[in-house]
């Protein structure tokens, strides 16, 4: 229980151990742990950044969705409007067409009736002359009496 040379030896042992442990145990372990905590901090920061990016993207998606919906509605409205326009146009055209057709038909009918009337008139005149020839049993001069016959015919067919 006394201080002796062991004391010197113990100082040497302790200092040597200190240097060796600093080099082989503390140094590598501390560096490792610092690296790891830096890595963890980095990872956490990256996770935060990822979360932010995700939220941003989600907001963007929602915005785009709203916009797209709006655009679709616009397109639908325009299409509806255009359809109505086309319908109206078609109706108008059809109506004009129909009127034209009806008009043409009416004109044709009128022409046809006239033509028929003329033909009838001629026929009736011939018939009347033939009938008069038979009735009066005399030969009439068609040219001399046509005026009378015509008046008879037009009287007779006045209502036709």
């Amino acid at each position, binding site marked *: 229980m006394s201080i002796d040379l*062991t004391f010197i*030896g*113990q100082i040497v042992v302790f200092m040597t151990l200190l240097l*060796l*442990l600093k080099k*082989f145990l*503390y140094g590598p372990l501390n560096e490792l742990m610092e690296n790891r905590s830096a890595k963890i901090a980095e990872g956490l920061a990256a996770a935060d950044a990822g979360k932010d990016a995700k939220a941003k993207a989600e907001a963007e998606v929602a915005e785009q969705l709203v916009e797209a919906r709006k655009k679709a509605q616009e397109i639908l409205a325009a299409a509806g409007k255009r359809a109505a326009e086309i319908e109206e146009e078609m109706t108008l055209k059809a109506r004009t067409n129909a009127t034209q057709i009806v008009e043409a038909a009416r004109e044709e009918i009128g022409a046809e009736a006239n033509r028929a009337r003329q033909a009838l008139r001629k026929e009736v005149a011939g018939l009347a002359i033939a009938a008069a020839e038979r009735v009066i049993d005399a030969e009439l001069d068609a040219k001399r009496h046509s005026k009378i016959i015509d008046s008879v015919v037009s009287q007779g067919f006045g209502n036709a």
Partner: protein
Amino acid sequence: MAQEGQSEGIPEHLQYWSYKFDDSNPFMQIHLDTMFTTILVATLLVLFSKWLGGRLTDGAPTGAQNFMESVVGFVDDTVRDNFPVHNPIIAPLALTVFVFIFLLNCLDILPAFLSGEIAGLFGIEHYRQVPTNDLNTPVAMAICVFLMVLYYEFKLKPMHFCKELLLQPFASLLLEAKNPVVKMLGVALIPLNLILKLVEELAKPLSLSFRLFGNMFAGEVIFLLISFLLLGGGVVGMTAGFFVGIGWSIFHMFIGLLQAFIFMILTVVYLSIAHQPVEH
């Protein structure tokens, strides 16, 4: 019977395996058992570190690495809590002090006579297994710490430290006084200040080393007492000795851990006082 065993046994078991260079000078001898045990433990510790260093991974740590990382983290936290500035040597020093002292203290759990018996096989008469029971080891470590404290005191704030050495606690106020008589009194008190301050500084390594040594030495003596109770007390004594021995072993392990921690924390605190910036 136990009394007889004690009277001749305990001092017998407190002898060192020593080599004397000079019989007339008690300083000129070396405790081979202390040297051998500390070098063995230190070598094993370094080998363990090298082994661990080879399989370090910066992924999820497992096993030994996990354990050592928690020890290093604990020491780092202690140093960081106490230190005003960063000094790269403090944490390794604290780690070395803690681990080394703890391992040396742990040797106390080996049976009290085992090392002596094994040494006896090689023809060695005495062998003390726990180096912290040898005053030289705690004093050596405490002196290392003390020298580091002095080194940093002189390196970081030489003027302040010298002033403190000469003028605290009495003179600083007296020297500022206008009255020349009071001023002279202040100058006259400088030697007294120096003595008081030296005592204060020397008390640090002294208390640091004797705390560890006293605890471990007392523990060893109690182990020897228990062992003599075991050997000499018949059936009752043996049964009692067995349980008391187990109890004391557990308690002594706790003391060993506690003393290692106290040595470490005081080392850090003394050094942090030396690093404390000067207040004006």
